[in-house]
């Protein structure tokens, strides 16, 4: 049975009447055309689909749309403030912390969530969190550099 789910996506109120078992990933991509959130594995192993659900990083592939009912979702498309990139996006861009870039949305969302929780993460915090994210091009050294570059910048701005 279809169900109406209403939630906030990137600051906008959205609602969708659909099978409540559909993944948040599919609804974001298919119904809202927010395709910045990527499918990589469908089992939470690669985190290319990371979005913020009430500020916390979740794999959208394992999150049903009904899990998001009355909640707040932020996707990669909701990070920038107009033309101004979020400091984590800025750091990834400046560092060139990607090759194919398919993991990048999820990586950036993962870092943003980490910095929401711990504005001054230790190296151990960073590695235990980022360990969940896969980059098949193995840009890991560059991503770590970008994260270290982002931390002081992100502290200067209010995390959304």
């Amino acid at each position, binding site marked *: 049975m279809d169900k109406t789910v209403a939630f906030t996506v990137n600051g906008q109120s959205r609602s969708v009447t*659909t*099978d409540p*078992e*559909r*993944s948040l990933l*599919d609804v974001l*991509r*298919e119904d809202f*055309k*927010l*395709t*910045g*959130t*990527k*499918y*990589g*594995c*469908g*089992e939470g*192993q*690669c985190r*290319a689909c990371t979005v913020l659900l009430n500020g916390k990083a979740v794999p959208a592939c394992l999150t049903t749309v009904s899990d998001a009912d009355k909640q707040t979702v932020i*996707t*990669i*498309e909701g*990070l*920038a403030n107009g033309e101004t*990139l979020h400091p984590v*996006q*800025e750091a*990834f*861009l400046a560092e*060139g912390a*990607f*090759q*194919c*870039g*398919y*993991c*990048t*949305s999820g990586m*950036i969302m993962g870092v943003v969530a980490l910095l929401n929780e711990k504005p001054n993460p230790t190296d151990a915090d960073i*590695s235990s969190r*980022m*360990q969940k*994210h*896969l*980059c*098949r*091009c*193995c*840009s*890991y*050294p*560059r*991503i*770590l550099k970008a994260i270290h570059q982002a931390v002081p910048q992100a502290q200067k701005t209010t995390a959304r």
Partner: protein
Amino acid sequence: MNTSSPAEPNYDELVEKVGYDFGLKRRTFVQILGAGFLLTASMPGVAQRGGRRGGGGGAKNIAARIHLGKDGSITVFVGKVEAGQGARAELTQAAAEELRVPANRVQLIMADTGMVPDDGITAGSGTTPRTVPAVRQAGAAARQLLIDFASKQWKVDASTCEVRDGQASCAPIKQTLSYVDLVKDEDAARMLEQAIPADVTLTAVKEWKVLGTALSRPNGRNIVSGKHQYPSDIARPAMLYGKVLRAPSFGAKLISVDLAQAKAIKDVTVVKDDEFVGVAAPTAFLAGQGLAALEKAAKWESSPHPSSKELFDYLKQHAQGVPANAFTEELAKAKQVLRQTYHVAYAQHAPLEPRAAVAEWTDGKLTVWAGTQNPFGHRAELARAFHLADDAVRVIVPDFGAGFGGKHSGEASVEAARLAQGAGKPVSLRWTREEEFTWAYFRPAAVIESEASLDAQGGITSWHFININSGASAVETPYKIEKHHSQYVQSSPALRHGSYRGLAATANTFARECFMDELAAAAEADPLEFRLAHLENIRLRAVLETAAKGFRWKDRVKQKTPNIGVGLACGTEKGSYVAACVEISVDRDQDRISVRHVSQAYECGAILNPDNLLKQVQGAIIMGLGPALREEMLFEDGRMLNASFRKCQVPRFDDTPELDIHLLDRPDLASAGAGETPIIAVAPAIANAVFHATGLRARSMPIKLSGAQKA
């Protein structure tokens, strides 16, 4: 014809294509997907080589390569794809350099068969040595036209004119003329229709202003903001999402399938064409329900299939004519003869974006957006499957989520197109991770048999090296050995196999460099000294010596620390040179090897973009740690046992060792592609470090302590 590209190398991309045939007269569907027993050569007309010998025809004239707009825009057309390897930046630099404009003036259109010249498949590290020069040639030709135009206007000698920042000038004349002025003049603009002259002068390396710099990816901002549309992100009006019914095991034949249950689901379209069965629906979720209904209703007849447990025996038994070692005299005279067998497991590319395609039919013509390394080969595959003329098919390749040699074939595109045809609407098909691990072609497994003789002075007197099943890349030894024979011998592949970053160079370099280490030990020589004593190639010597020096090899090899080992390896392939020294730690109780430090030197001629090169080398090393240490596709009864990221553990953040990368720039040499060769040295260096740490020899990839053998 563009004569600027150097002659095509003898480079074959072995990929079995799925023999989809949706012809109207012959309604057959030849399924070899996963059958695994058919070699490219044995199925003419069905299995085809990827691309047209990798080459393509190139641009027929300057205008086909570069469009100079009257509005000042500069658009460059290339048939290559961007899959993360950095071609977009590099080709932009190539055009900008020769046109003498800043890189941000150039808009690069890549891999749209409706717009770009056929530059062949993006594979074999070919963009750098072939397409970059072709683009430079066209840019230099256009620049020369501007100079000719200006000198004619000003009635001065062309040699007194130059182009800077897109403007032609001549010292005594105050005016300048731009590319806009050129194209606004009809006669001058017509000159762009001429073939690209072969004798045009390219900018010397020492004059480079854009090439040789660290230009970042031109569309990077769209990547970090989630705006870039990958093939799986393309949406068309009224588009449906597709799923395809797969066999439960390799080679299984569909006996029957009752479509009623799937058809009964509202909004689900079922498409059946002989053995091809799939669904399309307004959401992927609904399509998944349709597929589940089909899976329940399908009856299959399985066929026997070898398992990964018996793989190496199987490959050896099916080897097609392994030659005997003919160096009997050297063997008889030798002080020592060594003989070893090395194994390399099947691996999967697992690009983070699985195969994806969106297909749309309009008036009998087909447009497909796809992630493929082979746009024109893809077009040919689609044309063949649907019995269309090539020009009735357009393949558009948005920058996609990686390939690593794994996206040469067009099955997802053909499947999407067949579903779209049946549904009468555009269809997006994205393979699941499990499909990608199971039904995409694999990096071939190898059995490598090697035999060598040593004289009393520790010199290698003969070398006999046979690669069974995985390929000929880097099969020849780079060492100076009087009598040597190296050969690739085909077998019956147990899985459908094809290209992978570096092709068989990884397997061959693994076996050769491990065997060289065993020979060094037998000769009681230091592994570095032993290699150098047999090495004349100065480029290979240079990387080996650089890596060893950066690592402090001579000191560290003498240190004996429990559970710590060092090893080295080197190799060459596709015109570039690599050497790696590694330090590992071993935990025998946990059967675990950790790579702590890698010092790698790499040389590929003149460096086009140092930052992109560094990323390629770093990425290749870390990616290479996967098949070196863990990745191994396991299968039994025709089913994959580890078709997921949970079970097949590719490298993650904590696998990243300390990396010292030494990039040797050789501005005096032509640039070679760097996407592949940096991956080949790390695995044998690790295996050799296992010996240093434990005294045991690891002779299989992935390298396991539990599998290491007596030296």
